[in-house]
């Protein structure tokens, strides 16, 4: 570098340019005042380049940001020790003719006995996942009534069936016999959930009823808090808390011991649409995931101890079901209508970061229900396209990795699980 020259350049004044006579004096004055650079004396307009119309302009990154990205990719590669592979297609597709295209129903349940109970129209079928045998359990006579909610008891001895006409039945599946009918509701039973010998039902009549199925007079408590149909009901794994979601977009958390007084633990109004999808986290006590309907599309993770929302994901699609993965820290959401993304798809999210792991789904129309297998490997999605699709999305099970849920399960079952071939 020529220091003398540099010195001259740095200290010399910038030359004056020719000024044109048609240039407004005041404007020129203003320019000279405002601009730190000399103008050529000509009026000008300034424009900034936005890039080619053909290709989109990528964001400009700085050294460190680029290096951070590279470091993040490297870190991700290092952490991904078990190879996480999401199946591209279904393991199995079952025909489900006359499956009702009704968002609010919960017509599918997979029991610990490896039997899938599914209501198709006026009939209820049992599908044995071990030998794929199909058995029709019941058929409703007359056109105005059909099953709207199906749930296996925890020991899979009893099947609870809720109906359009507000009837609630308990069936013994081994003998294919109706054990008893429970009364109490005045509207269709959209949701049911078992907690030991307590069967909880939620109805279009806006009430939640707890039945003690052992007692002659089964009605233990009736809670009238919701302002609309109770379409989501789930008991926590320990059985101490109940989550109920309503069509008025509210989510209530109840303490089992305090339910008879209709005193809720929390009233959560964050959702902007019906709360049907509910799922309690298997690895963290008192953490609940809830999913909103069409105008909402959000998966919200709650700390039900404090009643606060700890995470929120906008999926931009109607959520009809949520299932936690017991083998990996993930949660799966099933979707119905959407204006933009995720329509008719199943989306897998890593927990707790809630980053999207992937999506799957070949449903031709919206998904209505989700349920998972007793061994926690397979998820079934029931779609309005009258199919039940089986996805082996939750596996492979981590080899004994301190996951107490899996070992408990294996202790419970006397027969081998997951013979879905």
């Amino acid at each position: 570098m020529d220091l003398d020259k540099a010195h001259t350049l740095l200290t010399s004044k910038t030359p004056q340019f020719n000024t044109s006579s048609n240039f407004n004096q005041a404007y020129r004055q203003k320019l000279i005042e405002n601009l730190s650079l000399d103008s050529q004396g000509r009026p000008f307009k300034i424009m900034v380049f936005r890039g080619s119309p053909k290709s989109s302009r990528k964001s400009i990154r700085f050294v460190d940001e680029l290096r951070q990205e590279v470091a993040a990719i490297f870190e991700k590669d290092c952490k991904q020790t078990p190879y996480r592979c999401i199946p591209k297609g279904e393991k199995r597709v079952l025909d489900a003719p006359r499956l009702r295209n009704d968002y609010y129903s919960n017509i599918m349940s997979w029991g610990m006995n490896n039997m899938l109970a599914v209501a198709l129209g006026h009939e209820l079928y049992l599908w044995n996942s071990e030998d794929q045998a199909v058995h029709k359990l019941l058929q409703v006579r007359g056109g105005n009534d059909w099953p709207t909610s199906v749930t296996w008891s925890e020991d899979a001895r009893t099947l609870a069936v809720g109906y359009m006409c507000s009837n609630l039945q308990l069936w013994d599946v081994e003998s294919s016999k109706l054990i008893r009918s429970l009364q109490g509701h005045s509207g269709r039973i959209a949701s049911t959930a078992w907690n030991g010998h307590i069967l909880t039902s939620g109805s279009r009549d806006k009430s939640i009823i707890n039945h003690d199925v052992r007692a002659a007079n089964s009605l233990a408590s009736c809670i009238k808090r919701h302002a609309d149909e109770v379409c989501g009901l789930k008991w926590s794994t320990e059985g101490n808390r109940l989550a109920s979601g309503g069509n008025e977009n509210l989510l209530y958390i109840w303490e089992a011991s305090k339910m008879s007084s209709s005193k809720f633990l929390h009233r959560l109004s964050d959702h902007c649409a019906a709360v049907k999808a509910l799922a309690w986290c298997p690895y963290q006590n008192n953490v609940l995931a809830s999913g909103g309907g069409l105008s909402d599309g959000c998966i919200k993770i709650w700390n039900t101890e404090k009643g606060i929302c700890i995470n929120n994901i906008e999926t931009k699609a109607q959520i009809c079901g949520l299932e936690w993965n017991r083998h990996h820290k993930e949660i799966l959401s099933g979707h119905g209508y959407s204006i933009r993304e995720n329509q008719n798809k199943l989306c897998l999210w890593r927990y707790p970061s809630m980053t999207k792991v992937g999506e799957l789904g070949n449903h031709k129309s919206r998904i209505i229900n989700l349920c998972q297998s007793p061994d926690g490997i397979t998820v079934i999605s029931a779609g309005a396209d009258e199919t039940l699709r089986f996805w082996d999305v939750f596996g492979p099970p981590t080899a004994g990795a301190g996951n107490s849920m899996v070992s408990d399960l294996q202790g419970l079952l006397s027969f081998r699980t997951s013979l879905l071939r």
Partner: protein
Amino acid sequence: MASRTVAKDIITLRGSAAIVSEFFGYAANSILYNRGVYPEESFAKVKKYGLPMLLTQDEGVKSFITNLTAQLSENEIVGKEWLEAGKLQRVVMVIMSKATKEVLERWNFSIETDSDVVEKGVSREKSDREIMREIQAIMRQIASSITYLPCLDEPCVFDVLAYTDTDVPVPFTWIESDPKLIANPQMVKLHSFDTKIHKVDTLVSYKNDEWDEQ
């Protein structure tokens, strides 16, 4: 350099416009490289102007600059491109803080066009090598500017502004803008080059470094 009779080449308006827009492309790349707006690894060396010039390999930036220079020298939409019509007054490359959008540096390339050539379509004569040497000098200066320009030690983004005559319609890949000025800048004038049709002056203005004694 001692002047000696060199064979002169014919420079046409179109040729001159091509030289200027090409210059701008290389200068932009050089600034991005030298000022560290992009990582060094993302640049590749090519030989140009008798110097090893660095060109970005980042697809996004590459296409951005290519489209920009094409705009200056060949605008199918407008019909007559800015340089040829003598309507381009300056091209300014603005470097801003990504976080605050504050303008940190402004590389100003002012263009003076010989109106005779534009109106009458005459051509000029100048040695190509001479022009190349002039450009080379500017490129060297850009490279050595890092010795006095303050460090850009935060993530930066850049923008390119064009100062044109007011009668130029704004193409849809551009939008009207403010000048993005620096308050109380330091300025350094670099060399200029002249094709005898277009004369390009280079000036860099930068935000006062707090460490400077004033």
